[in-house]
C-alpha cells in the first residue's frame, strides 16, 4: 500500500507539471525562412519595405533594437539627427568620415552592420570595454547571415526612416538571379493557424496588426466591418484592384495567389473578418 500511495502521489505531481506546460501559450519556433523576392521588380520603396520585413523578422534586429534599451531603438529615434550626431562624434573614425549627406549615411549604416565595433554608441558597448566593442554580431555572418541584397534592403529601410535619399538599388539581371537563388524557400506543409500565415507573409511589417504599429499599408483592425469577405479576398490576391485612400499602388506583393494555399487563405480571411476595430478596443 505504501508503494502504491507513493507512486500515485508522485504521478499526480508529475501530471500537474505536464498539465501546466500544456495550458501555457504554445509556440513552435521554426528555422527562419528566406523570403522569395522578385528582386528585378523592386523599386526603392519596395526595397525599403522588404528591408523593414527583414528588420522585424529574419534579421532579428528587433531582439535588441527595441524600447528595452539593449541597443538604440531605431524604430523610435530621430534617425536623421542621430546619424549626423554619430558621424560628427570625435570618437568616430570610420568609413563615413569625410562624406556628406546620403552617401555618409549609407557608408555609416553598412559599416555598422558589417563591422559593429567600428563605432559603438556611448553606453551600448560590451561591459568593461569602455564602448570599444559592440555586442552586436556582424549581420553578414552566422547566426544572422544576411545576403548582400538583404543588407542593401535594410540600408534602404533605415535611410527611408531617416528621411534621407535611398542610395541603394535592388540587384538586377544575373545578380538578382544569384541573390534569388541564394534565398530559395524550402517546401513546407500548410500553416495551421492564421497567426502562422501572418508571420510567414510578414503582414504586420506593413499593416498595423496586433500592435505592430506599421503604417506602410492600411490598418487592418475592424476590416471585417468595412469590407465584405469577397473584397478582402480580392485585396489579398490582387492588391492593386482597390487602393485605399492615402496609399500607393505596387507596394504590396502581387504573388500571394501563388504563395498561399486555399486553406491558408480561408484561415486568414476568417481571422481578418473577426478582427475588432481599434476604436472599440480603446
Amino acid at each position, binding site marked *: 500500500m505504501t508503494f502504491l500511495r507513493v507512486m500515485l502521489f508522485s504521478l499526480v505531481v*508529475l501530471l500537474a507539471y505536464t498539465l501546466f506546460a500544456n495550458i*501555457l*501559450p504554445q509556440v513552435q519556433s521554426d528555422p527562419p525562412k528566406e523570403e522569395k523576392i522578385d528582386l528585378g521588380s523592386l523599386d526603392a520603396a519596395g526595397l525599403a519595405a522588404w528591408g523593414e520585413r527583414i528588420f522585424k523578422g529574419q534579421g532579428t534586429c528587433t531582439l535588441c533594437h527595441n524600447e528595452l534599451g539593449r541597443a538604440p531603438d531605431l524604430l523610435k529615434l530621430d534617425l536623421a539627427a542621430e546619424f549626423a550626431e554619430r558621424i560628427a562624434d570625435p570618437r568616430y573614425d570610420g568609413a563615413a568620415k569625410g562624406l556628406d549627406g546620403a552617401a555618409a549615411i549609407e557608408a555609416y549604416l553598412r559599416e555598422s552592420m558589417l563591422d559593429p565595433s567600428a563605432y559603438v554608441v556611448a553606453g551600448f558597448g560590451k561591459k568593461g570595454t569602455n564602448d570599444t566593442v559592440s555586442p552586436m554580431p556582424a549581420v553578414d*555572418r*552566422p547566426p544572422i547571415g544576411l545576403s548582400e541584397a538583404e543588407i542593401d534592403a535594410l540600408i534602404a529601410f533605415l535611410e527611408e526612416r531617416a528621411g534621407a535619399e535611398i542610395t541603394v538599388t535592388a540587384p538586377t539581371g544575373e545578380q538578382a538571379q544569384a541573390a534569388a537563388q541564394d534565398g530559395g524557400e524550402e517546401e513546407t506543409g500548410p500553416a495551421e493557424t492564421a497567426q502562422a500565415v501572418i508571420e510567414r507573409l510578414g503582414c504586420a511589417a506593413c499593416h498595423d496588426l496586433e500592435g505592430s504599429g506599421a503604417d506602410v499599408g492600411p490598418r487592418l483592425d475592424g476590416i471585417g466591418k468595412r469590407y465584405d469577405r469577397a473584397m478582402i479576398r480580392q485585396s489579398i490576391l490582387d492588391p492593386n484592384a482597390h487602393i485605399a485612400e492615402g496609399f500607393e499602388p505596387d507596394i504590396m506583393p502581387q504573388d500571394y495567389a501563388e504563395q498561399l494555399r486555399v486553406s491558408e487563405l480561408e484561415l486568414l480571411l476568417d481571422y481578418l473578418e473577426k478582427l475588432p476595430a481599434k476604436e472599440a*478596443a480603446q
Partner: protein
Amino acid sequence: MNPAGSMRRAWTVVFLVLAATAAALAAPDALAQAADALAQPAPTPTRADYPVIGGLHGRPVVWGFAQMHLFLAAFVLAVPLFVVVIELAGAVTHDARYDVMAHEFMKISMAAYSFTALTGGGLALALFLFYPVVMDYLLKVFRGQALIYAVLFVLESVFLYLYYYSWNALRHGQRKWFHLSLGLVLNTVGLTLMFVANAWTTFMMSPAGVDPATGAITGTVWAATRNPLWNPLNLHRFLANIAYGGAIVGAYAAYRFLSVRSIKERAHYDWMGYTANLIAVAGFLPLPFAGYWLMAEIYAYSQQMGITAMGGVLAWLFIIQALLIGTILLAANYYLWCGLGRTDRGARYAPYVKYIAVVIVGGFLVWVTPHTLILSPEEIRILGGTSHKVLGPLGIMPAKNTAVNLMLVFTFMSFQLFYRSGRVPTVSWAGVGNMVIVALYAVGIVNIVAAGIYGYITPTVYKVGASVPQVVTTLTIIVVSLTIDSFMARGARKVEVHWGRMSTRSQYALFVLPVAFTWLMALMGYIRSSVRTHWHVYTIMKDASADAYIPTIGSAGNMITLVTLAFMAVIVFVFWLSQLGATVQEAPAGGEDRS
C-alpha cells in the same frame, strides 16, 4: 605481507594510472588525424543526411536516451561526492552511524550504475545512427578525446567497484584513510568524465578552436574544450548533481521510513532523510548563482542567444522553472518545519514558521508572474495591453530576483532554526552573537529589497547587474551566520533529537523533491539545447533535418514527463534491487534444507 608496503604499492599503481590519464588528457592532439583532414570546412548536411529508421526520426530517440543517461549519470556521479564527505565525517567523529549511512547511499547508486552505462551506449548508438555527419565533425574537432572518454569510463568503473566493495575491508584506522583516498580518486575521475562530456555539449553552443566562417579546425582540442560556456556549465552541473543526488537518496530514505516498523530503523531512515534533504538544499542554494553566471556568459558570448533564452520563444519556460523551483523550496521548507518537532526545544521556533511560509509563498507567486502575455486581440482589449497593469511589473527581473533571493534566505533560516533547536549555546557572548545574526538578516533583507527597487529605475542593460548585490547579500547572510553559529555551537548543551518523530505527511515532501528535480533538470536541458535554435553547432553547422524547429512547451513537457516516468521506473527498480541485496532468506522451519 607488510600491510604498509602493499598499500604503498597499491598507491603507486593508482598514481601511475592517473598520471597516464592526465598526460593523455593534456595531449589528445597527439592522437590527431592528418592536418589536411582538419583543414576541411565543416560539412553542410542536407535532409538526406538524417536517416529515418523504422518511421522514427532521430530527435525523439536521441532526446530520450540523452535525458535518461543524464539523469542516471548525474545521480551516479553525485552520490560518491557527498558520500566521501559523510564518510570523512564518520572517520573524524568516530561515529559509526555516518559510515553505515554513507555505505547505504553508495549501495543505491551502485545498482543504478549499469543502467547509466546501458543508456550511455544507447545514446552513442542513436547519435551515430541518426546524426552521422554531426558526429563525424565532432569526432574530428575533439580527435583523441573520445578515446580518453572511453578510458575514463573504464577507470570510473574500476574505482567505483573498488570503493564500494572495499568498504568493509578498509573500515578502520590507517586503512580508512586509504579508502577515503580511493573515494577521492573516484570523484576526480567522475568529475573529469563529466567535464569532458560538457566540453562537447558546450562546443555545440559556443564553438571555439575552429574557423568561425568555415568551421575548419584551427586550434587544439584544448581550445575547443575550453570554449566560453564550458566552465559555467561545469559548475552548474556539479552543484545541480549534488542537489539531485541528495533528493533521490532522500526519496529512498522516506520510502524506507514509511515501510519499516521498528523504532530503531525509523530513526535511522529519518536521520538519513534529513541528511539527504540537507545535501539537496546545500547543493541547491548556490545553484541560482551558478545559473546566473552561466546566463551572463551566454549573453557575453552571444546577446542573441541570451535573448532567445530569456526574452524570446523560450521565455515562458522560465515560468515553469519558477513553478518547479517554487515547489522544491516549499517542499524542502515544509520538511524542515516538520523537523522542529523532533526536539522539545523546536516548539519555541514554531511561531516563526508562519512568517517564513508567507515569504516563501509570496516569493513563489511573484516568481511565477509572467510579464508579457501572448494573447488574442480580444484578450488584449479586455486586459488593456499585453501585460497586467498591476501585476505586470512583478513579472520583470528586479521583482523576480528579489523574490528568489528572499526565498533562499528564508529557506536557509528554516534550516538554521532546526539546527538551533538541537543546541543551547553556552558561550558567554551568545546574546551578542544572536543579535549580530538578527541584525545580519534584517540589514540583508532591506538590502535585497532596496537593490530590487533600484533595478526598476535603472535601464534594462543594468537590471541584471543590479542583482549582483542581492546575490552577494544572500551569500553573506548564509556564510557569516553559519560561521557565527559554528563558533556558538562550541561547548553547547546538546538537546536530544528524537529521530523518527516525524509525521507520515512530512515524508511526502521528500518525494516531491526528486520528481520536481528530475522534471526541472529535463526542462533546463531542453532550454540549453534549444538556445542553439536551428544550429547543430551554433553559427558553424546548420541543422537541416525535419526536426530543426523548437517544439512547443506542451510537446516538450509531454516528452519530459515520458522520460521522467521511465527514470522513475528505473529508480524504483534500483531501490528494490538494493533492498533485495540486503534480504536474507530464513532457513525453512524444521531444520536444514534437505533438497
